């Protein structure tokens, strides 16, 4: 029995030539193991640096220049990783040692990278965000877990740690879906993640999944476009598209098409995943450094997005064929789509049972996540304390479902207009339907007095509400297919 090693899967191990650096030791919870791993890294880095220096000192033939740049690149990659570790590792010893290594490299006269960024979020000032190292015990445990599982602390984690209760559930679900046993092979899951993230042009998330996809042995050819992926996954393309933008159009035929190649179970898993990724993305998208020209969009944050599609960045576009397909207002949609009544098909009664049947335990995990997101409250609002926020939370939740054509019989939709002002609605709609178009101005313009943590809370709510909306449509289609 080997304890502690089970979680040691690191997606960041890259091929490093002969002088291979193994980062996975750093994820161990055992400080001695980390120590050894760090020492090993230090030696490799120093050796490379020395090598470079000696080349520099003895100017040689031009042909050497090429290999010189290559090894410089290699070294830089390592240094960047070390820099990341020095800032973003939950283990103090790793942070300190990484910094120490960087310093000693600098003393050798080699330029070391410096952090460029503005913290994990573009919208939230860095000083507002928790610094790694100053977290409390609970957060620390979460960080450790996340780091052990992924080998990194990503931006999303750092932002979501405002709400550790939710983060815990989120990480658990994510881990279960992406890393644990399931009906789909691991690389399929990441590929589906790529597909889903690409639909919203989230380059950050696409890159993360591309890395993971390659790490679990995915075929790099698939990354050249959906048409290079197996038929199974291609069939999901259409479903992915509909699910991402207009879930109310999902019919049992969609399920049938995919099903001829997929077990319903696998499909389920896939959809779960779609949701998951989407969700991750939204949480991130809003706060993330994004490459898309958001400034341009700013002026036209009108609701409809029919004609003015951004041409997505190249690397992302290959993952989806039909870029013109986007969210359309449910009500304005030409076709008549019957209203989805929650009283007839709801998550608690129907969705949960179906998911749990198709993909055991996932229903439970997701149910938990919904509950936490929906019920999360600190009974505060801006500067006020002891406030019952349930009405507001319900209004937000139902407003999102309303955008997807889901209706609660027992809700008075007038409440929404009283509680949510226009700028907030614009923000909600953009995040939920076209997260790639969110701007900092939008983010700043709603709820000016509220804390950032509260705004993050709102984002979590938005994300979960949307996930549930999509899930409801997808699951209903599956139910119909099964009966």
């Amino acid at each position: 029995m080997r304890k502690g090693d089970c979680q040691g899967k690191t997606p960041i191990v890259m091929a490093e030539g002969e002088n291979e650096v193994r980062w996975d030791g750093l994820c161990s919870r055992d400080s001695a193991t980390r120590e050894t791993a760090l020492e090993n890294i230090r030696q490799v880095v120093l050796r490379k640096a020395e090598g470079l220096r000696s080349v520099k000192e003895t100017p040689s033939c031009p042909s050497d220049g090429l290999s010189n740049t290559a090894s410089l690149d290699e070294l830089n990659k390592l240094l960047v990783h070390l820099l990341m570790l020095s800032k973003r590792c939950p283990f103090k010893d790793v942070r300190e040692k990484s910094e120490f290594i960087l310093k000693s490299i600098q003393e050798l006269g080699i330029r070391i990278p410096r952090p460029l960024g503005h913290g994990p979020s573009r919208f939230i000032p860095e000083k507002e965000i928790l610094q790694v190292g100053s977290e409390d015990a609970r957060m620390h445990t979460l960080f450790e877990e996340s780091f052990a599982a992924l080998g990194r602390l990503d931006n999303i984690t750092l932002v979501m740690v405002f709400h550790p209760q939710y983060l815990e559930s989120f990480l658990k679900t994510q881990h279960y879906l992406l890393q644990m046993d399931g009906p789909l092979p691991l690389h399929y899951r990441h590929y589906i993640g790529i597909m889903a993230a690409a639909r919203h042009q989230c380059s950050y998330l696409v890159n993360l999944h591309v890395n993971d996809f390659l790490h679990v042995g995915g075929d790099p050819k698939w990354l050249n476009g959906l048409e290079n992926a197996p038929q199974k996954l291609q069939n999901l393309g259409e479903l992915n598209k509909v699910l991402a933008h207009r879930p109310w159009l999902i019919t049992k035929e969609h399920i049938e098409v995919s099903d001829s190649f997929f077990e319903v179970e696998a499909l389920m898993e896939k959809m779960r995943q779609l949701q998951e990724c989407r969700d991750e993305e939204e949480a991130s998208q809003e706060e993330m450094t994004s490459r898309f020209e958001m400034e341009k969009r700013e002026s036209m944050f009108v609701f409809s997005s029919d004609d003015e599609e951004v041409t997505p960045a190249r690397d992302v576009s290959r993952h989806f064929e039909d870029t013109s397909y986007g969210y359309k207002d449910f009500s304005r949609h030409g076709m008549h789509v019957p209203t989805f009544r929650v009283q007839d098909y709801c998550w608690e009664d129907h969705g949960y049972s179906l998911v749990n049947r198709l993909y055991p335990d996932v229903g439970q995990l997701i149910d938990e996540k919904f509950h936490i997101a929906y019920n999360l409250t600190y009974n505060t609002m801006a500067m006020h304390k002891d406030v019952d926020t349930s009405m507001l939370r319900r209004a937000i939740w139902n407003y999102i479902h309303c955008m997807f054509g889901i209706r609660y019989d027992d809700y008075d939709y007038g409440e929404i207009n009283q509680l949510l002002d226009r700028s907030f609605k614009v923000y909600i709609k953009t995040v939920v339907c076209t997260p790639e178009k969110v701007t900092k101005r939008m983010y700043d313009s709603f709820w000016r007095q509220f804390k950032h943590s509260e705004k993050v809370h709102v984002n979590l709510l938005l994300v979960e509400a949307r996930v549930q909306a999509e899930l409801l449509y997808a699951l209903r289609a599956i139910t119909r297919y099964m009966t």
Partner: protein
Amino acid sequence: MEKMSRVTTALGGSVLTGRTMHCHLDAPANAISVCRDAAQVVVAGRSIFKIYAIEEEQFVEKLNLRVGRKPSLNLSCADVVWHQMDENLLATAATNGVVVTWNLGRPSRNKQDQLFTEHKRTVNKVCFHPTEAHVLLSGSQDGFMKCFDLRRKDSVSTFSGQSESVRDVQFSIRDYFTFASTFENGNVQLWDIRRPDRCERMFTAHNGPVFCCDWHPEDRGWLATGGRDKMVKVWDMTTHRAKEMHCVQTIASVARVKWRPECRHHLATCSMMVDHNIYVWDVRRPFVPAAMFEEHRDVTTGIAWRHPHDPSFLLSGSKDSSLCQHLFRDASQPVERANPEGLCYGLFGDLAFAAKESLVAAESGRKPYAGDRRHPIFFKRKLDPAEPFAGLASSALSVFEMEPGGGSMGWFVDTAERYALAGRPLAELCDHNAKVARELGRNQVAQTWTMLRIIYCSPGLVPSANLNHSMGKGSACGLPLMNSFNLKDMTPGLGSETRLDRSKGDTRSDTVLLDSSATLVTNEDNEETEGSDVPADYLLGDVEGEEDELYLLDPDHTHPEEPECVLPQEAFPLRHEIVDTPPGPEHLQDKADSPHVSGSEADTISLAPMDSSFSLLSVSHALYDSRLPPDFFSVLVRDMLHFYAEQGDVQMAVSVLIVLGDRVRKDIDEQTQEHWYTSYIDLLQRFRLWNVSNEVVKLSTSRAVSCLNQASTTLHVNCSHCKRPMSSRGWVCDRCHRCASMCAVCHHVVKGLFVWCQGCSHGGHLQHIMKWLEGSSHCPAGCGHLCEYS
């Protein structure tokens, strides 16, 4: 009792009649309720609210309560209930949170009576008091229950569940003031209607929402609850703490539960997802439903027994927009369909047989199977004491043990453990495996390995001296090669069919076959002497040419006992010999196709192809001399693998596949390989040869197989003190902050390999425990357990 007498009069001496029938509704139903006269039923749903009369042959629509030009949400019913005292009084729960009462006695078309809009969220359930005419109870998504007096405009009292939504409320039938409510968080609460401030009792009944509950009509204090966790539980509420009496595990979440009238232990359930059937369970027999109604095509949303004293009529409404009357006598009874006997064949040939006790008892007089000719009597009967099953059914289990030695699978285990599959040069692997096979008396297999070695290792490796050597040997002890191909030595499972055919041939005609087998039998002692260094030539011919040569050999071969006769001219006969025996797949096909042909016919058939392949043989022989590439044989090897797999010796197929690796893999399609691998791994695991199976998984090249040991690699550990799962670290518990895994020898925390005794669960560092157990057989923790380390 007042109620009882009323009911009896309602039944009015006339017995209910009717048949299993259904009628189509215009829309999906959400709930149904029966009038106390048992002649009418009300169906309610999002867009339906109708009363049907239950007639002898059919349902007849009597009244549509959904009137008005533009139906409001008040008419979108989540639940409906008909008063059991007053035929004119109904109540519905609307999805928008309104509670509506209806008075059928109203002269106008609109029968709506009162409207209570006190709940903020959907009302999930309404319930009339069983004996009180004006008392109505409602339970809503907003977490409140309200009690209404229909003579007043507002609720009389409000009960706060202090939790999420209320899913069901039910007045106790026996206790006037008591009602039960169930909640989405899994709790059940018991309330006194006079005390709205707090509940009398609360307990967690299910994991996840409790969708429904029902009081037992006769047994005071028995409450059945059904939940999303797919369970139906029966609670005894009379005791101080609610006691779980029975638990029925269904296959889907339980949406409704209703006790069956007049049958103390029966209850009916239906599900809200996936499963469309209605089941009637005997709670004492929780695994098989007593009855099953399969009429609906979509989920059943409402069930009701037609009359509180008639157990045979069940009504149901469904999402498939139909209303059904089920008759108990028409129900399908899974118990009847269940196989009353069970038979299972064990790994080592044991046989277990379970049957209803009555069946066994009837037969117990005679000795089982004794008279059966086809089965040799190697079974010993061992009768286990019958296990009575809840007083309802009892069955007897008999186990028949295999007598030691008969058809055991020992060879399989031995082979699996001793084969070498990788890590050495091919020639060595082949030699090793051939040796293993030979030692286990499986000469055909051994020979196959040897041949493989010769085919795939460059011929230069086989010293030419060997040729002479074995020739010499051969002359001394007969026909070594031929001998080692003896069919007789094939494992029973592998070659029994072939053998049968052959022996038929033997007896009926004294052609080649007879001779050969005779020879083989006599020369058994050669097996040992015959080494792995068989001359290349012979083997080649051997693989190539099937058994034709035998035919040629035959004339010289009349006295097999005398070795001299067998070895007349050097190369020629020898080649024949070899050729004979490995039954090539094609040839086997022939045999298998004609097992019923009479002996002589079979002979002619098997002889027919011989001539042709003979010519082929000589050609190939010539070719071989000019150094054929191993590819030349790949077809044969492929066929050989298929042959073994077909024969059931998938072990051989997989082992060869692994050993030869790329040399043959391309010739066999992926799926077949995968199939072989999985069957072999399955077999290995049945024999608990975990290490071997893991090695096979590791060595396999098929993706689907090699990922087998990549899954489920997480090991979950619980703290040894507080019994909670240890999430973050393997050795320190987050909750009780103690070190969980201490080494029993050095008393330090174990952070690496931890080994523990499964008997007393003490353990520690692998090295420490190993060392300790060398000196003592007792547990190092001093618990007195005799630990064993293997």
